[in-house]
């Protein structure tokens, strides 16, 4: 500020100078405010959407590569899970930080009342709305965040990150008692990590690889501690990501009961535990390769079948035709179930010997069956689809089949629409019919 020339003016200038200082302070504050709002606008309007797009695209990439993960997992007979490992102290410290911040938050709140004009808050908050439910990341889910509504939330998280990264940063925010406590807690944590407890490691993460990553220390602390021997994948700020390889056999022992019916399970469970359990596990897990990959294929194949020239319009009607369709449904299911296991046994570990009765039933069917399709359908869909898929190729190839189909079509046409309507559910029957004919031919 320039000094005025005269002494009389100097008095004025003091107040003036003060005034100017005040003004400059105000201007600076305005500029700061403007800059913050601008930064906020940039983050919300340009960066976030781009990041969301990036997330979508990376999701698409994952969709594309998911098959290969399951492929490799299956080839190695393991399940790979990625999970995050959090320091345990985060929980306790969070709460206390939370309290502090909540107190601070009140003061913030009183101040913030003045600034109503700020960038439209409603507009800003909406974009996050959808994100939050989607991303269950550890930060927002943590109890600390849930408690605080307005301001305290943000600082709590940032502090969280700092804490997790290392003890010293954490000390800034908490009392010395707190730091001591964290240290005390830290040491037992390490001790825990040293003796692995065999029971849980599989349980915690096996079935849900994706979810296991997201939930923070709140749910998995103990498990994470135990699994420290796993391969380190990434270390990002506060979190350590590790890979856990779970052999499939473990899972098999756990799951077999629920899915295997007693009838066939009696033979299969004893003699071919591996195959049986695998089927069970595969239903639960996306990661199980055999199921996941074929299950994707199945839907593609169906439309082709329906559109296939030979079936045409009569395809839907053929099923209910002669007595053949009636025989099949019950027997067919058994056979289909049998086929599942036999198919698996032969392919997976050669354990098919277990179910001989079933095999005898399905012997003929196995010859027809295409392994891949059978597997794919196994996890998801009812036996119907399997049969649909399999016979088609044969039917197309052999003229006898077409002839039989035409006969069936004629029969259906003559029979009229009534039958078709009742039997709407039995679309599978046509395939069965075809098969039976096919079998007759072959034998």
């Amino acid at each position, binding site marked *: 500020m320039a000094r005025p020339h005269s002494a009389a003016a100097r008095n004025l200038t003091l107040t003036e100078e003060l*005034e100017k200082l*005040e*003004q400059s*302070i*105000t201007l600076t*504050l*305005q500029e*700061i*405010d403007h800059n*913050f*709002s601008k*930064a*906020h606008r940039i*983050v919300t309007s340009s*960066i*976030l959407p781009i*990041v969301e797009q*990036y*997330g979508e695209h*990376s*999701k698409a*990439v*994952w969709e594309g*590569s*998911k098959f*290969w*993960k399951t492929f*490799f997992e299956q080839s190695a007979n393991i399940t*790979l899970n*990625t999970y*995050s490992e959090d320091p345990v102290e985060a929980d306790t410290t969070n709460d206390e930080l939370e309290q502090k911040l909540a107190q601070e938050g009140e003061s*913030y709140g009183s*101040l*913030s009342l*003045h*600034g109503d*004009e*700020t*960038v439209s*808050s409603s507009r*800003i*908050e909406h*974009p*996050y709305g959808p*994100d*939050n439910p*989607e*991303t269950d*990341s550890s*930060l927002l889910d943590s109890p600390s965040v849930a408690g605080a509504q*307005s*301001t305290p*939330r*943000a600082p709590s998280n940032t502090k969280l990150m700092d804490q997790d990264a290392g003890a010293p940063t954490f000390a800034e925010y908490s009392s010395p008692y707190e730091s001591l406590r964290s240290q005390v807690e830290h040491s037992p944590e390490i001790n825990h990590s040293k003796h692995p407890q065999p029971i849980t490691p599989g349980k915690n993460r096996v079935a849900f*690889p994706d979810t296991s*990553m*997201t939930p923070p220390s709140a749910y998995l602390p103990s498990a994470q501690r135990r699994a420290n021997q796993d391969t380190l*994948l*990434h270390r990002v700020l506060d979190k350590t*990501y590790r890979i856990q390889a779970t052999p499939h056999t473990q899972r098999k022992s756990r799951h077999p009961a629920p899915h295997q019916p007693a009838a066939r399970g009696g033979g299969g469970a004893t003699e071919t535990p591996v195959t049986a359990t695998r089927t069970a596990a595969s239903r639960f897990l996306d990661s199980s390769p055999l199921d996941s990959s074929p299950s994707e294929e199945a839907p593609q194949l169906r439309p082709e079948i329906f559109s296939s020239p030979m079936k045409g319009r009569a395809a839907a009607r053929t099923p209910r035709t002669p007595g053949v369709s009636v025989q099949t449904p019950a027997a067919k299911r058994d056979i289909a179930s049998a086929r599942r296991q036999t198919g698996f046994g032969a392919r997976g570990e050669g354990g098919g010997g277990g179910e001989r009765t079933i095999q005898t039933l399905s012997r003929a069917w196995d010859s027809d069956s295409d392994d891949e399709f059978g597997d794919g359908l196994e996890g998801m869909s009812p036996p119907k689809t399997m049969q649909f898929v399999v016979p088609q190729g044969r039917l197309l190839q052999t003229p006898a089949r077409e002839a039989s189909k035409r006969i069936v079509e004629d029969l259906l046409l003559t029979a009229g629409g009534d039958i078709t309507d009742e039997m709407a559910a039995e679309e599978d029957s046509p395939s069965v019919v075809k098969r039976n004919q096919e079998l007759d031919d072959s034998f």
Partner: protein
Amino acid sequence: MESPHEHQQSLLLGRIINNVEKLNEAVMALNKSLQDINVQNMNVELVAQMFKNYQSNVLFHLEATDSLKEPS
């Protein structure tokens, strides 16, 4: 007696705090989404590593068996 400047500055400070809150929330959301994306990409990375290992294994095998041929 409160000077007008003081009042104005307190208002401005309130605004700034408000903006910082919002910015903080925005950055948190950004971090969160990035974190999720990173976690998701870890699986892709895993697949890439497995493929890489597979490729090196195949290469080793082919070289060991002298069956490696130049791409035609």
